[in-house]
């Protein structure tokens, strides 16, 4: 049994094959990275793994349950959470609210509990708030809980997105270019946070990233995609020396010297 599994998934947009025969079998607690040039189809893969797109062929499985055709929020309830390449926070809500919104599944009370504010409701809400604050201090955002999300600096918005994804209690966390637009010290900070998440939570991470150094430093396994096709898979060291990968990133050697 595998946590998240993709069997030969492909997707087409009006005849254009964006991703072909992508396979994935996540191991528990690993950090799996998907890399590839721009437009290779990495985010499209994420969109299929998180339910935003349904693959044209092939199946996505979570805990051996076929997920094809399920709603996005059902993917989340199965334990998949994600962040977005272009940040999608709840801008006009406060930092704390961004997390409490994501803690939807913890609110195990009915409509009438909330309209009448029963003691059950109050207890749950208190718990949710406490958990959210705890998570905020884990991400060192606790001092900013009443800021509006859209007013945070860029790096902290990225951090808040990860925190928000963690608020859904995921088993698999999908990070879509979390270091995009960050400066080297912010990237260092981010690596620290990812390591901290891995050591504190029972979690598996899939990472899409452009920062090669970062991927090589933290990934356990890497898959390289080009034009929607998997061209290499393996440990960071193997990938580094794979001629196909070098070709995809740097172009053919003959061409360079020609």
């Amino acid at each position, binding site marked *: 049994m595998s946590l998240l599994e993709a069997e030969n998934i492909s997707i087409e947009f009006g005849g254009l094959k964006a991703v072909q025969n992508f396979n994935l079998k996540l191991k528990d607690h690993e950090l799996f990275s998907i890399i590839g040039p721009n437009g290779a189809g990495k*985010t499209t893969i994420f*969109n299929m793994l998180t339910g*935003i797109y349904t693959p044209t062929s092939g199946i996505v499985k979570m805990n051996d349950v076929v997920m094809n055709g399920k709603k996005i929020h059902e993917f989340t309830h199965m334990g998949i959470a994600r962040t*977005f390449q272009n940040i999608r926070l709840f801008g006009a809500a406060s930092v704390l609210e961004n997390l409490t919104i994501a803690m939807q599944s913890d609110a195990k009370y009915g409509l009438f509990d909330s309209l009448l504010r029963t003691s059950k409701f109050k207890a749950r809400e208190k718990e949710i708030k406490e958990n959210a604050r705890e998570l905020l201090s884990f991400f060192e955002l606790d001092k900013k809980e009443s800021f509006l999300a859209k007013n945070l600096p860029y790096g902290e918005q990225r951090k808040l997105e990860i925190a928000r994804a963690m608020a859904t209690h995921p088993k698999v966390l999908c990070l879509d270019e979390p270091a995009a637009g960050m400066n080297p010290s912010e990237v260092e900070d981010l690596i620290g946070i990812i390591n901290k998440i891995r050591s504190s939570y029972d979690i598996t991470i899939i990472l899409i990233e452009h920062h090669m150094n970062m991927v090589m430093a933290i990934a356990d396994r890497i898959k390289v995609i080009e034009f929607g096709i998997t061209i290499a898979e393996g440990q960071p060291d193997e990938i580094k020396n794979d001629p196909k990968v070098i070709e995809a990133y740097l172009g053919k050697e003959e061409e360079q010297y020609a």
Partner: protein
Amino acid sequence: MNNIIQLLIYGLQLGSVYALVSLGYTMVYGIVRLINSAHGDYLMLGAYTAFYVSLLNGNNLILCLLGAMIASGLIAMLSDQLAFKPVREQPKFSSLVTALGVSLFIQNLSRALPFIGPIPKPFPTLITKKLYNILDITVSSTQILMIIIALILLFLLTYIVNNTKIGRAMRAVSLDRDASALMGVDINKTITITFFIGGFLAGAGGVFYGIMYPTIDVSIGSLLGNKAFIAAVIGGIGNLNGAMIGGILMGVIEIFATSINADIGFGVFYLILIIILIFKPAGLFGKLTNEKV
């Protein structure tokens, strides 16, 4: 059979009016993404202008038409400058709310102004009505003239949009405002002219309304405007051909529906609107843009 052709001609007559008015809705929407609910009120002011022009110069169709069109065009421009331009950068729904406010403002102001007032006015006879009998079908000179003028205006508009510099600018702005600004298109000028042309056509619609129905009052704009707007949405708002076809289609449908039952005439409009929006959300000829993840 003759009866059906007779109704069809009525439908075309009404439809050509709807087409003129819905073109204005569609052009403005295409360029600033605003549902301008005040558009019908330009039409009403145009009809009143024609009323006063006819008092000054006798019942001259061309003069009345020109006066109405220019007046409506100018008012459209003015409302854009004063009300819509300042809210252009705000969230979308606030420009819609502003448009609702402008519509109410124009109507209530007209009601308060002494020379328009709340009491309906009789519209002058601008076309002397002659009846022609062709193969047992009666066609009036009014119908022929109206359809011809509407066709001329529609062709003129198509020519402007497709073959002139300002038309090119209009198409560019509706595709991508920022990119066309970078390419040196004067955005504000283009928007202003679009409003003027929209109002210009609405003015003609106002005169036609007066010709078809003997009295005009302050609320004719919202009545006709609503129908023309639905026609524009059905055709695919933002799409010129869609607005023309939608307008004519709705004119014909309305005439047939009211010949069956007068009460459901207007209901049919909304019924068709709802059905089309549910099954083809962007209208018959429109395109829906998808959000990229």
